[in-house]
């Protein structure tokens, strides 16, 4: 853990131990570990002098952070109003079936996490699905399989 601790500390010193940089620091941690490990949050709490409970408050407020380990790949299905009326929920169901997990869950092999979001701000091209940061426009149920294949064939 000691090496880990140094790594976390380096994020914190990068922002001059400033309390107001909490979100940026959490973002770096999330980036590194794909979630916010308990131990790391405790280190951050001590180093910044912010009570742990307040950090948890921030971490649970934003959807960008997760306290549970997330899968290697993040699939986000938009269920905002526009995407909803264009069939977002059906598309979500299709992903759930194909990946064999429910929304908000991570597959057992740690490969995929499936999440929902309420509007990504690009309603015109809805229904929208984001896979590891790549936006896919006008998704239909039929396209789900091919998208998954295309996206994960690369590896």
């Amino acid at each position, binding site marked *: 853990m000691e090496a880990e601790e140094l790594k976390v500390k380096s994020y914190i010193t990068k922002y001059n131990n400033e309390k107001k940089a909490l979100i940026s620091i959490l973002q770096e941690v999330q980036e590194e570990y794909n979630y916010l490990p308990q131990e790391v949050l405790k280190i951050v709490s001590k180093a910044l002098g912010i009570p*742990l*409970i*307040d950090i948890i408050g921030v971490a649970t407020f934003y959807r960008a952070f997760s306290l549970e380990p997330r899968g290697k790949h993040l699939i986000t299905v938009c269920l905002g109003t526009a995407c909803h009326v264009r069939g977002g929920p059906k598309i979500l169901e299709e992903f759930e079936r194909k990946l064999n997990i429910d929304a908000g869950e991570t597959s057992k092999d740690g490969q995929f996490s499936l999440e929902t979001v309420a509007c990504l701000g690009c309603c015109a091209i809805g229904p929208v699905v984001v896979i590891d940061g790549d936006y896919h426009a006008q998704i239909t149920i039929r396209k789900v399989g091919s998208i998954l294949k295309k996206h994960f064939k690369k590896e």
Partner: protein
Amino acid sequence: MITLKINGLEVKTEEGQTILDVAKFYGLEIPTLCYNEGLSRYGGCRLCLVEIGEEPKTKLVSSCTYPAEEGLVVRTDTKRVIEARKMMIELMLSVAPGSKIIQDLASKFGVKQVRFKIRNEECILCGLCVRMCAEQMDGRAIGFQNRGYKRKISTPFDTRSEECRLCGGCIYVCPACQLRCQGPDADTAVCNACLTMDPTCLDFHDELQCWMYDVGRCGTCIREKTEESNNKKRTQKSKQKEKNA
């Protein structure tokens, strides 16, 4: 010195007082729930709403957070205030009908129905426990988590917190758990029993369920149960059974 008007009465106060402070000082009653003298103001329950300004430009503000201003016109019991207050109570009642404090508020302000889905939660998110822990107990063990409909109070990672000193302060101030009210086996979430003159508890519960652990002290159970009330109970019970069936 600031001079303002509450319910037509000219009152004087100092800079930095809230409307609620002034009203209390002059003995005008404004109901509160998330307010506690020893804690910071939160303005979350909206029970202390008052109407400020002159017609037709009036607005509702929470008196526990609104500072007294020179020349302010405040009214504490207008139709608008009463209706808003009743709505808040009805909403809180639908969330935590098990709270005696909220049931009592319902009785006091004539809330006789709950038109929302009954959720039977143990928390109305008033934030008293969080402030108690941080401000009086120097604890920092509990706080708000998540947001929207998932918002809740808990410790970090939902386990026993190292910061908690087991002082019980949070439970002491909690309106939802310091006093449990079972209510009669009513068909609705409103009990409205405590503040009426009917014998209550023992009509519906046996001795062992006295929450004062001192059967007979409040006197309700000693009152002779009339044939009538027994009958009432019986019909109510059978009605309920029919409903459940």
